[in-house]
């Protein structure tokens, strides 16, 4: 696909006897936000480092703008802005001075690049506060400012909202969204916070123990999330019998002695309630439910949920 800004093929990283990333095939399309979702230690940062050529690849290939980054660094890097892990800066310099150094090294021609980048992330220009005195949130903002300083086409952001307060997270989310929608930037963002990815990403990749378990658009994922009728009844065994006999329901599951899920949502809930009551089964609750993305994540990873 010509539209791919990042593509990995069977990307694998092995540290000693531990496989950190296992045959990952990732596809990031132009002008879209790709959320790489996974628990801590799932391999998100390693994938990003391999894409950026910051760590060696054990096997497989990573392509950025259709080119292998190895040997094409001078052409590719100026088109990328990235934050990998916690952004580090010179502790004895102010935010502005730090960015001026990076702007100089990048040969940024735009005269107000530093000022504009700081404004975008809500940090003051020419402030006297040195980086060592910055809060974690301010450090993270400066990292984002540095990533967008040279107006790159592609942003690779590894957990960019770490340490930000809820308002800060919302601000960063909005400006990443604006960058994508208004300026056509492509964003690869990783996070272990599911709600954040669900609110921001167009496409989602779920990575678990180094394996990319799922990759699809958010819309497709939401479609896959099953709908069901949740029934709270006095006796699930009796209720199941009634449902099978009178409504011919086959797709249902008994959660516990009082809870039952019916996966055929076309059934008339009022009719079910009435029938169960007539069969002397009391119904304390009946509602139409939707699996959340977290439920889906649990299902895919076969384990615990995610924040």
């Amino acid at each position, binding site marked *: 696909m010509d539209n791919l800004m990042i593509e990995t093929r069977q990307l694998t990283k092995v540290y000693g006897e531990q496989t950190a990333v296992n045959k990952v095939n990732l596809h990031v399309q132009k002008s879209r936000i790709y959320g790489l979702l996974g628990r801590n230690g799932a391999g998100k940062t390693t994938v990003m*480092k391999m894409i*950026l*050529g*910051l*760590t060696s690849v054990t096997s497989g290939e990573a392509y950025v703008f259709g080119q292998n980054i190895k040997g094409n*660094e*001078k052409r590719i*890097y*100026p088109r*990328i802005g*990235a934050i*990998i*892990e*916690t*952004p*580090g*800066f*010179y*502790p*004895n*310099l102010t935010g502005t*001075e730090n960015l*001026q*150094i*990076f702007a*100089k*090294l*990048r*040969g940024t021609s735009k005269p107000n690049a530093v000022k504009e980048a700081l404004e975008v992330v809500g940090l003051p220009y020419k402030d006297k506060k*040195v980086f060592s005195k910055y809060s974690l949130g301010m450090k993270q903002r400066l990292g984002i400012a*540095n990533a967008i300083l040279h107006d790159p086409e592609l942003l690779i952001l590894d957990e960019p909202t770490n340490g930000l307060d809820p308002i800060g997270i919302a601000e960063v989310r909005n400006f990443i969204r604006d960058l994508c929608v208004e300026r056509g930037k492509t964003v690869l963002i990783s996070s272990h916070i599911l709600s954040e990815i669900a609110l921001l990403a167009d496409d989602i990749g779920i990575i678990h123990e180094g394996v990319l378990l799922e990759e699809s658009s958010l819309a497709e994922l939401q479609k896959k999330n099953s709908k069901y009728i949740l029934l709270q009844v006095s006796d699930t065994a009796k209720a199941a019998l009634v449902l099978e006999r009178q409504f011919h329901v086959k797709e249902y599951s008994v959660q516990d002695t009082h809870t039952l899920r019916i996966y055929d949502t076309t059934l008339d809930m009022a009719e079910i309630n009435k029938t169960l009551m007539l069969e002397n089964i009391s119904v304390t609750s009946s509602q139409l439910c939707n699996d959340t993305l977290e439920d889906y994540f649990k299902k895919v990873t076969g384990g615990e949920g995610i924040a």
Partner: protein
Amino acid sequence: MLNLVQTEFLKLRRRKFVWLMLLAALLMSLVAIFYFGAANTVEITPMQFYKWTAFSYTPWIILPLVLGMLCTMLMYDENQNDMLKQLWIIPVSRMRYFFSKFMVVLFYSICFMLLTAVSSISAGVIPGMIAFTSDSVSFLFIKCLEIGILTPFAMIPVLTVAASQKSYILPVCVTIVYTFLGFILLMVNMYVHPLSSTTAIFMRNISGVVMKEPVHLGKSFLCIGIWAATSTIWAKVALNTGK
């Protein structure tokens, strides 16, 4: 490359210790004032005085220790704060990065030795201990420049150790051992240690200095060159592997 060197100097803002270390250039001049003052020598030649202030412990011990500390400081922040990956994706070439650090060390070393020269003249002439002669002053400045230029090349191994470590402990320990080893080996074999070879080169034509054996310039430069080249290759490997 020029941009890199410029940014290296920008990074030194508010680093008081870097500038405070320059005060070490005045140390031997102060010692000389007390030493010659107490000795009450009738006539001190400028060369005798400068040997004390600029050609002895300053290039043997003080300057290498100061440069070793500087090398460690230059590398420490970027290593400790995990900044290198941000530089590599600009992209900044590993070797240019290393040489830009070396350029700062070279510039600092020259400034240090010029300050040593100025303080030597001031400490000798102002109290009237020595006469101000153009020959001795120009010789002092030439020798200080020689020392200021050669010593950073001899310190490249320490810069490499600093580049390959996240911590400052090993580079500081290496600086101390490396400096004193250079001083000790000067009496044994001048062409084994780069600092000994540096001493051999600048001492070759200082009157009144008797070396153990005649100075062989080729061997001295070869020693410095081999150590510098090997260290540079090591630095390239270390920076590439991201240690």
